[in-house]
């Protein structure tokens, strides 16, 4: 669903994810050079990626394409041979690799002398020389090449670093976003200058706050809206937020989708509309709602949103207008096409689009007048519909324009007699899709149809798990074929997707196939297994990575959940809900959790005991998050009893912990400790020591919050040791933070600082905003105790931002302390100075906040009084803090 690209914060990667440099060359004649290049790349601690011949389960072309797809830099080495041209191909693998390198940085090395250079290679080198985006150098020996590559890569990296190095590393999952959100675009964009200018003018003024781009499917509304967003670089301090509604069919969920995209997650009884308003906090912002035709019932919500946020503009793409007050409809028309038959019209936008798309496969296309005339005729027959033109042009690898026109003509002619209730242009697109589908081979048709089961984007692994129903279906190879034919697009982070119109078409095909149910069941099974495995990883030190991976799968998760509930697979639905609890909690998706759990609980009378227990657990937790304790507590009490009845100690232990968490703050201390002890007993019985430690540290939290300092210290020490034994970095850090607060409470400031400093290091290494936030709050306490009030306020601001960003509900034991602390620091500094320092801290990036905390720690020990303002690097303007659900004592 919403696609998000973080352009403001650094990507923190595990050490195995090095920058990948693809080495392209003929294999045998340049073997020593390939080895030298690989050595140069490894010497820079980067990863060389090389295609080698050998027995592999994939076709060579699929392999090198997949390798190249995952690489960030392209190195081409050429000498005399042009390389092998595969049957049915027009260019060699070496040339294909160069062409597929696309916009990657390309470093080209040509070996001299080359007295017997093959003509094909001479032409390729001519092409490279004429390309002003590729650099090339000559060399004569392998050792010279190694030095050149090492030097050039170092220069390239420095330049990219200075220009904003994160752009060079687009492949790994990213942390959630705070600013502009933009999906990647891969297709051509031609001939829309006038539309762009008009829309930008509309959005730039204050009169028009709702612009709806209307037009038939495939006309290019989405693409146009994204180009508008890309062009808008200034003027929206509240950000530009793209929300894809393609996979949402319930109008009631539109506002939640918007809130989620804005990062305005759930709070107690605050409506999503209010959350969005709070998030935008009066700043000028643009929200793009893509594919609105699926949820036209939500038009009043858009009106409400606009009324509630006077500085908000909304750009909508929809096949029909919203028909609400203030809407400016902008009809997106097909691209201009040559009017006269036989006219070549190279300048017509439709022809340009065809030629540009086709040249990726057939470089010389469209250079002859007669061929251009044929292309012009194809475009005319396709009514200038960009998507139809792209689909037709994608066939030029195999078919000449003449052949395309002839076959397409038949298809269009046939279909004109078909679905007469459709408007002309829709019939054209439909016919083009039919034509494109009919040209696929059996494997491609099968895979294309099955891929319709995915909502949003999917990974190669998912496609293999869900679609490989026969052993002889080569999913990777076939998928790459569908990408070639423009039926599947490359999405973000190496994932794949279909344009909405194409996905609808594929879905129609799937709907009439007998295997539909089996494919949907396979999808649901895959999603459940993925979420269960990801949920386990959320416990670990790599939480942020898994959180991002889960976020990328949310459309598929929702589709699977819907299917499970609709098809009566309630056992899987309950398992999926329980597996999602941790993720929902971290993300603050309380409304969604409640909606799904209510849907499952509606069937509670017909469920088996285990499913009932899971449904009650998920339901109880969801109710509690929404502040509906009256419903939540009895559900959790039932869940505890039911898990005991079916001898499921893990379920019982988790339910007991959840119950202790949701019990009101005034609940007797002993009752909570008793519940947590019961939880520990059950969890120990289940053998899950990691969760035993969570229960143990929850007991410590409760003790600390209730003033039982000695008990709290012992329990945190126990938790620290248990975490050490399990090599649980997060668990250790959490225990150390707890011990830090114990030290603060007992006035052992030096010890407290040591413990918090250690956690800052861990939080920085893991890129974990939650841990870092807690540690910074602790250090703020240290600073306050040492009368460094300004530093305390900066740290409190940074901590608030980080804890908000983590999405995790505030650390209960510490909360009471820092609420008091904020008040105390504010009293000492005065409101204005406190607000200024707090704002400074709030604007720090994760690493800058960590550096500030550690740097100041060193300085303070030397008695320096000045605040290291030079270290303050703004990340984003302060936002109104999300007042998350505040339960004081136990964390789940």
């Amino acid at each position: 669903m919403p696609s998000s690209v973080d352009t403001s914060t650094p990507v923190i990667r595990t050490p195995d994810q090095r920058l990948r440099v693809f080495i392209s060359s003929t294999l045998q004649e340049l073997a020593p050079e390939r080895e030298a290049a690989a050595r140069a790349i490894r010497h820079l601690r980067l990863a060389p990626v090389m295609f080698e011949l050998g027995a592999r389960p994939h076709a060579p072309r699929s392999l090198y394409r997949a390798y190249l797809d995952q690489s960030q830099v392209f190195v081409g080495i050429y000498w005399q041979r042009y390389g092998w041209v595969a049957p049915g191909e027009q260019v060699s693998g070496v040339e294909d690799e160069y062409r597929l390198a696309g916009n990657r940085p390309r470093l080209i090395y040509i070996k001299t002398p080359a007295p017997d250079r093959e003509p094909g290679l001479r032409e390729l080198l001519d092409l490279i020389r004429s390309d002003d985006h590729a650099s090339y150098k000559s060399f004569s020996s392998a050792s010279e090449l190694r030095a050149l590559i090492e030097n050039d890569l170092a220069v390239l990296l420095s330049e990219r670093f200075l220009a904003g190095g994160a752009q060079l590393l687009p492949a790994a999952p990213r942390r959630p976003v705070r600013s502009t959100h933009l999906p990647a675009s891969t297709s051509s964009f031609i001939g829309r200058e006038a539309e762009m200018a008009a829309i930008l003018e509309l959005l730039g003024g204050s009169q028009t706050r709702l612009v709806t781009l209307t037009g038939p499917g495939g006309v290019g509304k989405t693409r146009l809206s994204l180009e508008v967003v890309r062009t808008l670089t200034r003027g929206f301090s509240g950000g530009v937020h793209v929300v894809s509604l393609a996979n949402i069919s319930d109008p009631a969920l539109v506002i939640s989708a918007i809130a989620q995209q804005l990062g305005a997650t759930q709070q107690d009884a605050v409506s999503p509309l209010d959350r969005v308003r709070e998030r935008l906090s009066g700043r000028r912002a643009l929200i793009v709602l893509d594919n609105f035709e699926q949820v036209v019932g939500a038009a009043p919500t858009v009106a409400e949103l606009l009324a509630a946020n006077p500085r908000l503009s909304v750009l909508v793409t929809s096949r029909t207008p919203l028909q609400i007050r203030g809407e400016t409809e902008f009809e997106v028309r097909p691209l201009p096409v040559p009017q006269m038959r036989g006219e070549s019209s190279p300048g017509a936008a439709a022809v340009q689009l065809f030629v540009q798309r086709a040249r990726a496969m057939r470089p010389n296309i469209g250079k002859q007048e007669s061929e251009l005339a044929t292309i012009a005729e194809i475009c005319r027959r396709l009514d200038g519909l960009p998507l139809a033109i792209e689909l037709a042009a994608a066939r030029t690898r195999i078919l000449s324009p003449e052949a395309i026109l002839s076959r397409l003509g038949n298809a269009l002619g046939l279909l004109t007699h078909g679905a007469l209730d459709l408007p002309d242009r829709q019939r054209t697109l439909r016919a083009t899709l039919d034509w494109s589908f009919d040209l696929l081979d059996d494997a491609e048709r099968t895979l294309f149809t099955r891929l319709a089961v995915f909502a949003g984007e999917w990974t190669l692994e998912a496609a293999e798990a869900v679609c490989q129903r026969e052993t002889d279906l080569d999913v990777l190879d076939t998928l790459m074929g569908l990408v070639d034919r423009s039926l599947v697009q490359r999405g973000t982070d190496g994932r794949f997707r279909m344009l909405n119109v194409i996905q609808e078409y594929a879905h129609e095909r799937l709907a009439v196939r007998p295997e539909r149910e089996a494919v949907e069941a396979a999808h649901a099974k895959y999603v459940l297994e993925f979420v269960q495995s990801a949920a386990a990883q959320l416990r670990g030190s790599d939480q942020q990575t898994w959180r991002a991976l889960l976020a990328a799968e949310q459309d598929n998760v929702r589709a699977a959940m819907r299917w499970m509930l609709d098809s009566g697979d309630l056992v899987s639905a309950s398992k999926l809900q329980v597996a999602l609890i941790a993720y929902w909690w971290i993300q603050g998706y309380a409304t969604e959790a409640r909606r799904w759990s209510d849907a499952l609980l509606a069937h509670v009378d017909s469920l088996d005991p285990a499913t009932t227990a899971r449904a009650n657990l998920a339901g109880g937790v969801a109710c509690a998050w929404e502040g509906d304790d009256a419903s939540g507590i009895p559900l959790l009490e039932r869940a505890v009893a039911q898990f005991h009845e079916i001898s499921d100690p893990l379920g019982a232990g988790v339910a007991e912990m959840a119950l202790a968490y949701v019990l009101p703050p005034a609940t007797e201390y002993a009752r909570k400790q008793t519940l947590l002890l019961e939880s520990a007993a059950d969890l120990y019985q289940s053998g899950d020591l990691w969760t035993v430690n969570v229960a143990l540290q929850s007991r410590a939290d409760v003790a600390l919050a209730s003033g039982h300092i000695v008990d709290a210290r012992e329990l945190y020490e126990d938790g620290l040791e248990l975490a050490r034994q399990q090599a649980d970095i997060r668990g250790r850090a959490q225990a150390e933070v707890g011990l830090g607060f114990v030290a603060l409470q007992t006035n052992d400031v030096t010890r407290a600082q040591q413990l918090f400093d250690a956690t800052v290091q861990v939080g920085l290494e893991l890129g974990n905003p939650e841990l870092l936030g807690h540690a910074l709050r602790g250090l703020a306490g240290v600073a306050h105790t040492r009368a460094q009030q300004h530093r305390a306020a900066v740290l409190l601001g940074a901590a608030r931002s980080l804890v908000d960003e983590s999405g995790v509900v505030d650390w209960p034991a510490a909360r009471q302390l820092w609420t008091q602390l904020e008040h105390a620091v504010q009293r000492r500094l005065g409101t204005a100075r406190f607000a200024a320092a707090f704002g400074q801290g709030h604007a720090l990036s994760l690493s800058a906040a960590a550096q500030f905390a550690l740097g100041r720690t060193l300085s303070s020990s030397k008695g320096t009084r000045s605040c290291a303002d030079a270290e303050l690097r703004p990340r984003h303007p302060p936002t109104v803090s999300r007042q998350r659900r505040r339960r004081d004592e136990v964390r789940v």
Partner: protein
Amino acid sequence: MSEVQQQLAVRSAGSNSSIIDVSGDVTAATEAALMDAYARATASGVCTVLLDFSALEYMNSSGIGLLVTLLIRANRQGQRIGAFGLTAHYRDIFELTRLDEAIHIYDGEPAAIAA
């Protein structure tokens, strides 16, 4: 859990072991007493603490949770825990909750001390 409302007797059993006489009920309310007894039992630096359950009247699941906590604490301090005097019923409970995998159960005090 901080306030000691009952006291459990602690006695020495050789140079390397101490025995805690666990009497009455073991529930969440016993925590202060049990931890206090444990602190006294280990003050002399013994390696093994034996829990004598002969006078145990009742133990519930929060009491089991308490023993889990005790086990983790002993582990942290490099000490071993053993038990004796359990009725058949509580032996079953120790097996069901897997406590018997970490707390060695002996048939009686002589066997426990001898081990």
